[in-house]
């Protein structure tokens, strides 16, 4: 069954890529949806099978790599984490595939799109199911490749192609970190299998040198990998640009699944991270800073997808923060809820864009509530979920993370404070997005080059949205924090579910005692209420600023009073420019030097010189090269005879 989960998307990709007639869009779409839906059905079976026993199960495929003592079997694992992940990937994947059929209706090469998309699902499944680092790495690189292909799907436009390349190159930096992590792991532990590493860490009561130091570097390397894939500071720059791809791609790859691979990987290796508190501090800081940093940029963006992209970076920052403070379960829970509501928001934005004929600038929207009632409804749910209104999924997950950050012994309240501010920003920019898009007065296009009224999307586009909206509300109740759940006599189902998987190794128990310590519920209540208050305040401000007012209210306010700050935010802190100046340009100059001088002059020169020498001298020898078959044949034979004669003596 587990193999079927993998086989279906692969088959779909191959069919779409190689076999299907190129013109039938319906067939391409049908095959792609069927492949992912089939995988989802199988994944459900696999998950239920696992859920019945809660015993992680290994599936051995074949002996993949073997060199000396090193072995890397092609082996899959189904446990709490990968079981959950395959459900997310195939479930949300199915919805997005269905949606994409409508969104990509006007495309000519849909088969290419769906082939990539199915391949992505396959690679992502491989990533989460692999039982060793190498299989995971194959998936890791595979999703990177698909991401590259899909960002550059409309490669005819140079900007898109460049965005794809940027994503690929930035990811490479992270990948190198990941690879170094794999190498170091193998060097110190002699295996790359998760189950073996996990049991090794579990059995060690204390860690002697060199392990603590090694673990610091190992986890740091892996974290760099996670930074690349999950778009953390300073490697987040590719994700906003990745919005050049089609919106379903943004929803599936750059919001729900691939970008969370870093969080997934860190959770998979949580036993390492727990044992390396120094790395954890770095992780927590990077996460918190990313959350706030991206949220502030999102405040002033005008492109609807860019807002969502920075929002994604910010939310990923929350997850990384959760990992950093040791609350991997909260991180994974936020991953789950975020997957639902961010996919919802992206698809909703996609519907808006679709209805607006590929207009992405929010300043040119407005008053769409009348035209797109369903989209408006689901977007509202999504926004409420992401800003953390009580009762919606985002509330539970974000609150859990902030609480865990608060009780983190080192700089805990500071981390909480940053996250808290970011939550405020989130509420503001999301409500701003909603107001600009759906409320207010419709934008009057002076040039009036399109006369179409925006229409509600067809059922197969809003259907998935409704499902995702229901999920965005419902999923949250799986992870109601303990202190709230106790009110109704329950407990945190999600944390309970992950208990068997995420454990603190014996050697690191001391450092993480606070996670299980008793805390005053009053404090928890207080924090929660304060964040609700902040969210309400921020949302209220946004509503106040952006409805029934000239639209550029706050922009003009900011621009009027803090023009430099406003410009800085609009320029996204000028990180890209800085990278360009400090890294890309010098690199290009060095490369040019290597090319122009070292390669062309020195290396080519040497090779050419040798070549000229040989050409000059070979003229002397080539008098024997008559081109006569007989002579060649004769020398072959004569040589053979000579060898035979020599071998006789």
């Amino acid at each position, binding site marked *: 069954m587990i193999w079927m989960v993998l086989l279906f998307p692969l088959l779909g990709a191959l069919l779409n890529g190689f076999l299907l007639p190129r013109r039938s869009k319906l067939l391409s779409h049908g095959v792609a949806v069927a492949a992912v839906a089939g995988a989802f059905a199988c994944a459900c079976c696999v998950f239920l099978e696992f859920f019945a026993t809660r015993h992680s199960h290994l599936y051995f495929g074949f002996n993949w790599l073997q060199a000396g003592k090193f072995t890397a079997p092609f082996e899959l694992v189904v446990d709490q984490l990968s079981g959950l992940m395959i459900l997310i990937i195939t479930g949300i994947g199915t919805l997005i595939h269905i949606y994409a059929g409508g969104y990509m209706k006007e495309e000519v090469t849909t088969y290419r799109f769906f082939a990539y998309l199915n391949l992505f699902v396959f690679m992502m499944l491989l990533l989460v199911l692999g039982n060793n680092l190498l299989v995971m790495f194959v998936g890791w690189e595979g999703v990177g490749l698909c991401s590259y292909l899909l960002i550059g799907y409309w490669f005819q436009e140079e900007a898109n192609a460049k965005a794809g390349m940027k994503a690929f190159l930035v990811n490479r930096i992270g990948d190198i970190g990941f690879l170094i992590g794999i190498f170091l792991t193998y060097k110190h532990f002699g295996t790359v299998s998760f189950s073996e590493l996990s049991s090794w860490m579990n059995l060690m009561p204390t860690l002697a040198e060199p392990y603590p130091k090694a673990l610091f570097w190992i986890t740091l390397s892996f974290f760099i990998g996670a930074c690349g894939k999950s778009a953390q500071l300073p490697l987040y720059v590719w994700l906003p640009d990745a919005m050049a791809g089609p919106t379903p791609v943004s929803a599936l790859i750059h919001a729900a699944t691939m970008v969370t691979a870093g969080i997934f990987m860190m959770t998979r290796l949580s036993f390492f991270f727990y044992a390396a508190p120094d790395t954890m501090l770095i992780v927590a800081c990077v996460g918190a800073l990313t959350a706030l940093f991206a949220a502030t940029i999102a405040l002033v963006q005008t492109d609807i997808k860019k807002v969502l992209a920075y929002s994604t970076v910010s939310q990923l920052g929350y997850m990384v923060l959760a990992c950093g403070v040791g609350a991997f379960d909260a991180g994974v829970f936020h991953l789950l809820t975020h997957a639902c509501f961010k996919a919802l928001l992206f698809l909703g934005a996609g519907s808006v864009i679709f209805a607006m004929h590929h207009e992405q600038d929010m300043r040119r929207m407005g008053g769409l509530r009348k035209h797109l009632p369903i989209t408006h409804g689901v977007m509202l749910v999504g926004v409420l979920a992401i800003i953390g209104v009580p009762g919606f999924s985002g509330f539970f997950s974000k609150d859990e993370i902030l609480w865990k950050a608060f009780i983190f012994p080192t700089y805990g309240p500071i981390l909480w404070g940053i996250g808290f501010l970011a939550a405020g920003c989130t509420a503001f920019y999301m409500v701003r997005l909603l107001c600009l898009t759906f409320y207010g007065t419709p934008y009057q296009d002076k040039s009036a080059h399109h006369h179409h009224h925006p229409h509600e999307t067809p059922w197969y586009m809003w259907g998935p949205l409704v499902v995702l909206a229901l999920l965005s509300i419902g999923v949250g109740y799986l992870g109601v924090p303990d202190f709230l759940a106790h009110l109704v006599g329950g407990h945190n189902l999600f944390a309970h579910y992950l208990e068997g998987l995420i454990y603190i190794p014996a050697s690191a128990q001391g450092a993480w005692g606070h996670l299980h310590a008793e805390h005053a519920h009053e404090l928890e209540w207080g924090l929660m209420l304060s964040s609700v208050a902040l969210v309400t305040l921020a949302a209220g401000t946004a509503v106040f600023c952006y409805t029934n007012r000239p639209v550029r209210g706050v922009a003009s306010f900011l621009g009027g009073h803090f023009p430099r700050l406003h410009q800085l935010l609009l320029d996204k802190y000028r990180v890209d420019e800085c990278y360009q100046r400090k890294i890309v340009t010098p690199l290009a100059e060095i490369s040019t030097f290597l090319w122009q001088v070292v390669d062309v002059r020195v290396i080519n020169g040497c090779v050419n010189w040798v070549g000229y020498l040989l050409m000059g001298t070979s003229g002397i020898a080539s008098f024997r090269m*008559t081109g006569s078959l*007989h002579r060649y*044949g004769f020398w072959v034979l004569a040589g053979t005879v000579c060898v035979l004669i020599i071998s006789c003596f």
Partner: protein
Amino acid sequence: MSAMVPIEHSLILAFLLFFIGAAGVLIRRNLITVLMSIELMLNSANLLFVAASRQVGNVEGQVMMSFVILIAACEAAIGLAMVIAIFRRYGNIKTEFLRALRG
């Protein structure tokens, strides 16, 4: 069937055939004859396979021999196709026209 032909006989016969074939390759100017001489050389190899198979008492040499026949068939097919192509190009099939490899 009881008496066995000593393998040395087969060796010598194979050797003679091989050298006759090799001589054909070297001394003839006609591509088709050259190809036929190559067939002779292949046959000498076949004879060795069969004789060796007899010598060691199993049939693997004969299996090899059938593979060699298969290869000979493919070789003849492609070789003669090239002869036809060469004939179209040069109007005859003398080997001295094939001097593209001259240094």
